[in-house]
């Protein structure tokens, strides 16, 4: 559609004056990085050997106790040696850690005695994170994490680079991964960071509110009430002491959630969705277009008071969150948001909803409930097909909620009367599908349909669909997934847009007012031309804005 089709980054002059380009040559991480990473060990060594001396200094006593005068030099010598060896190890590990971004690969060599060479293909990038722990932030350093599709550790971790360098490297990697070739005249020129467009921010007050109203708080209140009642009944005060560690643990858990979710900001750029969050340790994630494998919008019962929702995603490479704070923060697309914000995020993940009225369908998926007396299995609003009435004994509460609907681009599964869930799986992201039926389900003529996606917090499962509907969906879904996969042919997301532009006449696209509706991202013009981008971003969210009143 624009100059982006030429395969060159036209705006690259803008960043040419920047620091040394990472393209081509082997580079080292910042010299201070081993100390930032290992400061705890250094501090521990210093504390262990220097404690006595330091304490005596504080008390105004002589530097070396007379009693220990004989031993003190040895102690200091030992401490000094250990410290020196540690520092030497750090320096060596720093010296032997080198990285390179060239020819479509990122390569990292590490190790002094046991060497390790690792290379990862740029076009296989699933996500790029820039992480800044507090200490690194103080020194203006940042860690770059490059994820490919294996459910384990990060493929490449570069710790630490200057924050500016890390951002520069991320821009380079993302533009190479998108399929933008380096300028043949000046291959040394660094890629320009794609401009971004802020989408939403979660205010701290809402984050606090969401934590207070979370499931966790419910059990805290319950546990507190029970302790009070127990102590009143047994007239035993002493067991309050046992609550202290529990309370400390709770404070830590709340603090961790607050620290991770603070100042959550989402933005969209041609490189994908950018998420930023963190109070002390900040993290910036970039999810390139089409890398989200599955998505779940959920609402705990108490959040219903304010109409809040949470969005979690499966991204290959992030793996399962495993309950750890950082992991679950990485797979959270929106820690707490309103209905309108949920729709906005959905529009970013699924630029083409595949339906003329996405607002109505997604709203039905979030809050809809089938009419108990309505047509069997057919929800009046949103076209959700729910559990047939005959199986209501299997799920007396949920049978009117459990249901599915398919748009042209994604399958929507909703479930849960109290804990509302809506799972969205894009058709081309389905790995395999299974239909399952136990003896009880067979008696009621229902079956479960399970979609397998990459590891993550979301496990899409359609609960108790009618047998005929389930079987039809099983067939239709494999056909739809097949068709969607055929449309997506390249790992370079800019290539997909190029292919599309060649299929659709530019004039036609312009006339339609919504250029290239099929593939994410429509916005992928040429990096460095913000003028081209703004209006398209506005356009892109159009389908989700049709029913304005529902938003505000």
């Amino acid at each position, binding site marked *: 559609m624009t100059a982006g089709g030429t395969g060159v980054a036209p705006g690259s002059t803008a960043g040419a004056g920047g620091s040394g380009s990472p393209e081509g040559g082997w580079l080292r991480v910042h010299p201070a990085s081993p100390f930032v990473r290992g400061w705890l060990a250094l501090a521990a060594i210093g504390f262990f050997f220097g404690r006595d001396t330091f304490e005596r200094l504080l008390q105004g006593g002589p530097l070396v106790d007379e009693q220990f005068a004989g031993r003190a030099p040895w102690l200091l010598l030992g401490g000094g040696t250990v410290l020196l060896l540690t520092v030497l190890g750090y320096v060596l590990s720093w010296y032997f850690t080198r990285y390179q971004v060239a020819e479509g690969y990122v390569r990292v060599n590490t190790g002094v005695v046991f060497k390790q060479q690792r290379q990862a293909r740029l076009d296989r990038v*699933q996500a790029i994170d820039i992480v800044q722990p507090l200490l690194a932030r103080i020194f203006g350093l940042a860690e770059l994490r490059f994820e490919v*599709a294996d*459910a384990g550790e990060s493929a490449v971790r570069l710790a630490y680079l200057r924050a500016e360098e890390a951002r520069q490297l991320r821009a380079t990697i993302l533009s190479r991964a998108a399929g933008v070739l380096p300028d043949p005249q000046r291959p040394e020129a660094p890629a320009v960071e794609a401009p971004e467009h802020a989408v939403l921010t979660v205010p701290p007050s809402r984050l606090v509110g969401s934590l207070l109203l979370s499931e966790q708080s419910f059990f805290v209140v319950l546990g507190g009430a029970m302790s009070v009642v127990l102590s009143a009944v047994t007239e035993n005060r002493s067991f309050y002491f046992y609550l202290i560690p529990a309370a400390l643990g709770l404070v830590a858990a709340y603090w961790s959630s607050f620290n991770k979710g603070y100042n959550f900001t989402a933005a969209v750029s041609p490189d994908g969705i950018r998420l930023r969050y963190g109070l002390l340790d900040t993290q910036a994630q970039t999810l390139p277009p089409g*890398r989200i*494998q599955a998505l779940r919008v959920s609402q705990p019962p108490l959040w219903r008071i304010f109409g809040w929702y949470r969005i979690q995603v499966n991204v*290959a490479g992030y793996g399962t969150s495993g309950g750890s704070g950082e992991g679950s923060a990485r797979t959270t697309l929106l820690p707490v948001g309103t209905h309108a914000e949920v729709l906005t995020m959905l529009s970013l993940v699924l630029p083409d909803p595949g339906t003329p009225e996405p607002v109505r369908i997604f709203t039905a998926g979030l809050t809809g409930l089938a009419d108990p007396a309505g047509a069997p299995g057919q929800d009046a609003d949103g076209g959700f097909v729910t559990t047939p009435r005959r199986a209501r004994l299997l799920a007396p509460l949920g049978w009117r909620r459990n249901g599915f609907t398919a748009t042209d681009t994604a399958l929507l599964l909703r479930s849960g009367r109290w804990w509302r869930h809506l799972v969205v799986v894009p058709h*081309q*992201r389905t*790995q*395999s*599908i*299974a*239909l*399952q*039926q*136990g*003896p009880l389900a*067979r008696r009621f003529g229902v*079956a479960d349909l*399970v979609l*397998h*996606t*990459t*590891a993550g917090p979301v*496990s899409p499962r359609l609960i108790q669909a009618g*047998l005929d509907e*389930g*079987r039809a969906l*099983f*067939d239709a879904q*494999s056909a739809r*997934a*097949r068709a969607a*996969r055929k449309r*997506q042919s390249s*790992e370079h997301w800019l290539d997909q847009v190029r292919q599309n532009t060649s299929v659709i006449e530019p004039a036609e696209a312009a006339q339609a007012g919504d250029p290239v509706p099929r593939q994410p991202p429509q916005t992928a013009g040429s990096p460095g031309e913000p003028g081209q981008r703004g209006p398209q971003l506005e356009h892109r969210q159009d389908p989700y804005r049709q029913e304005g009143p529902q938003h505000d």
Partner: protein
Amino acid sequence: MHSGAIDPPGITWLRVSPKYVTVRLAGWALGNLLLLAVLALPLVFVQAGWWHWPPLWLAVAVPAGMLVLALWRLVLIPRQVRAIGYAERDDDLLIRRGIFFQRTLVVPYGRMQYVDIGAGPVERALGLCTLKLHTASAGTDAEIAGLPDEEGARLREQLSARGEARLAGL
């Protein structure tokens, strides 16, 4: 030929070798008889007068209950083996299993990351093998056990060729 209610209509299922029953029987014997022997120990001790707890009825009831369960599983094995089926369609592979708890799985060829063939000692003695498909999802439990060796090799080549032709990214 068992064909359950949840299978898509119009599929001709290929069945695994009936010899696979022997493999399952061996596995059953190893697992259940060992468990049964361990559970029967208290009975022996109580009878010998070394233990005074548990009471006799409990010492009898636990292994007896276990025995019934084990025999029930034993009776089911031939039917379970007959219920395993797979079908190669143009774009995907269907795998079904189970009688009480049925499951029908569809794996698109383009989604396959790699194919494993393995054989345990009993399987090897009978000339059988187990074929396992891996996709990017850990949830895809696509395993066909009890294939004759040459059928396993044929299927592996076939799947690899088709996977190559229809390869898709994640």
